[in-house]
């Protein structure tokens, strides 16, 4: 597995190593160049000494040079060599050369030629050659001086060793220091990773700290926190769904089991009333399962939509008688506002299911003696059916959650509603290209709005 820390450390160590190598190389080159310049200056001094000792007397070139003054030209010392030519003939050579010759390369006195060479005794050397006119004559002579590079190379070797040693030491320091810099630098990321590893389905309330985090990590933490918040909400919803589902199914199951076991335990008490109760529980379960299946199909787009021309107002009028008695018993008044030209195309069965659910909720959950407003109106290419009623205690949060499966204002199972009606209504609304929204105003009036297009959307 790739490690960011290891990758950064190796990368930085490699980069520093290259820099140290390049720096060492440049330093060596600079030192070598300076030492060679210095060495060449020494050769130039020597060749000038030889030139000074050269003169022309009566057409004959002589070199009056004594190695007593420069002992390195001596045969025994043999650290330096010179040779002087006049034309093609050798005028003079140092004792150190014995019978050997130096190469006759040369330049002007202002721009002498220098070169590396192998000395007659096979040692590495360096030479300088100049052409000049000796005192007392016009014929040019050539003087070449060479010297052993032994001390120069030894000094360069020492410098090379120092550079290599220093570079190696620096590399070691870099290799030791960089992980200690990279490690703490990655600590915030490590903390995020450690915290992330502790997050599970039961610890989704955790959040990554943003305070004190490096600016590069803050956006990551913020995104992760937003994701966690969504996950937490989603998990809470799913847990609530599971608990509610258990609730809704286990209760009628428990009823049926108790009734059946009672009938077996006390057969003499078994009768039509017991069977009626058992059937009631069974029908509740059947309705629950049917609704869940309907909802599942709607959520998975497995419902077939058959658009026909419909009029929401006419359907509401048609559905109302089923709720009129209940509304009257609860002293509810109804205000109708059905505008003309509110026909549109959609699946009538779906529309009836949606509107039936909205009417039922308004009649069952309004406080007694209040006014229910039912309206259908046209807005551009859309038709809006609204049913509003006072709903004390209904909050904005409720309005956001009331379409959740099994949502109930009172989460106990009391009442005949299973908490699936609005979920199904919203899914069916989506199937016909409409939206179903709930809003509650400051006066506590809840309005459910079905907003449908006049023409159904094209089926993909």
């Amino acid at each position, binding site marked *: 597995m790739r490690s960011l820390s290891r990758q950064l450390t190796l990368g930085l160590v490699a980069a520093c190593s290259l820099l140290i190598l390049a720096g060492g190389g440049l330093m060596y080159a600079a030192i070598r160049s300076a030492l060679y310049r210095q060495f060449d200056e020494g050769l130039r001094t020597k060749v000038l000494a030889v030139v000074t000792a050269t003169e022309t007397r009566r057409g004959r070139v002589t070199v009056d040079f004594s190695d007593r003054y420069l002992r390195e030209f001596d045969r025994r010392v043999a650290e330096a060599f010179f040779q002087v030519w006049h034309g093609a003939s050798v005028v003079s050579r140092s004792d150190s050369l014995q019978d050997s010759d130096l190469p006759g390369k040369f330049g002007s006195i202002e721009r002498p030629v220098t070169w590396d060479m192998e000395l007659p005794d096979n040692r590495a050397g360096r030479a300088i050659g100049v052409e000049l006119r000796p005192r007392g004559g016009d014929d040019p002579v050539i003087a070449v001086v060479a010297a052993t590079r032994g001390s120069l190379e030894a000094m360069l070797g020492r410098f090379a060793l120092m550079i290599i040693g220093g570079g190696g030491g620096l590399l070691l320091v870099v290799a030791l220091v960089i992980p200690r810099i990279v490690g703490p630098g990655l600590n915030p990321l490590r903390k995020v990773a450690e915290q992330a590893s502790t997050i599970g389905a039961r610890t989704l309330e955790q959040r990554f700290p943003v305070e004190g985090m490096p600016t590069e990590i803050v956006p990551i933490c913020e995104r992760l926190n937003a994701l966690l918040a969504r996950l937490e909400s989603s998990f809470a919803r799913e847990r609530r769904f599971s608990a509610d589902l258990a609730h809704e199914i286990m*209760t*009628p199951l428990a009823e049926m*089991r*108790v009734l059946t076991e009672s009938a077996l*335990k006390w057969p003499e008490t078994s009768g039509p009333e017991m069977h009626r109760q058992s059937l009631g529980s069974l029908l509740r379960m059947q309705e629950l399962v049917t609704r869940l299946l309907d909802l599942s199909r709607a959520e998975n787009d497995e419902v077939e939509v058959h658009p026909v021309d419909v009029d929401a107002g006419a359907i509401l009028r048609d559905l109302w008688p089923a709720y009129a008695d209940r509304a009257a018993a609860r002293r509810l008044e109804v205000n109708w506002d059905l505008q003309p030209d509110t026909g549109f195309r959609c699946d009538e069965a779906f529309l009836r299911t949606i509107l039936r659910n909205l009417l039922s909720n308004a009649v069952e959950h309004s406080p007694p003696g209040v006014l229910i407003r039912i309206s259908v109106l046209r807005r551009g290419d859309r038709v809006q059916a609204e049913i509003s009623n006072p709903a004390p205690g209904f909050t904005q949060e409720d309005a956001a959650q009331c379409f959740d499966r099994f949502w109930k204002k009172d989460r106990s199972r009391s009442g005949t509603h299973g908490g699936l009606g609005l979920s199904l209504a919203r899914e069916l609304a989506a199937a016909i290209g409409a939206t179903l929204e709930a809003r509650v105003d400051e006066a506590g009036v809840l309005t459910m709005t079905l907003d449908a297009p006049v023409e159904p959307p094209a089926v993909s």
Partner: protein
Amino acid sequence: MRVLLVEDAPNLRESLVAALRRSGYAVDAAKDGAEVLTMASTVPYDVVVLDIVLPRIDGLEVLRRARESGLDAPVLLLTARSNVADRVIGLNLGAEDYLGKPFSLDELLARVQALGRRRHGQSKPVIELGSVSVDTAAKRVQCDGKAVELAPREYALIEYLAFRRGTVVSRSEIEAHIYDDLADPMSNVVDSAVCVLRKRLSDAGAPPLIQTRRGLGYCLEAPESCAPLADN
């Protein structure tokens, strides 16, 4: 024994009340938390069967408040939820037992019975009273190995007296534990029931077990072992 059943689903509540009554319990039923708090503060229940999910006040909150206000009867929690957290919270709040829905009726009755026994410090299901034995698990009374036929209410009476054997039990205590709200508080149901029970035991050949302590109540077992009534 008198049981308080708290369940908001009407069908389940009614069928459980019927089953518990047929099993010889005096049963009161409540459908929400507010009723429970009122009833538990006025009646000395032997067992409370409490659904966790209730309208308005959650069952766990009901349990907490009831315990705070002095409810000392053992509580059996019923719930359709299967999560451990609810059970742990419930048990930590003072519930004695837990049963998940859907449950076996026999298991519920057995647990109610066990909690009732525990309430009266009785660990063994069979109470021996000389030649008479009261089997609280089988709800059966035997005399010299032969079954004594008793109606549920008669059995409930001897079971309660057997739980309290050796102590004088007042009529009002018997009423409170044997009869639910259906009984007429003005009638002399206790005296009548004791009379019938004595006759049933006598017919079965049992020695006179139930002594009358005039002005105090009744005491089961030999009269000399009865302690005076502490709070009549």
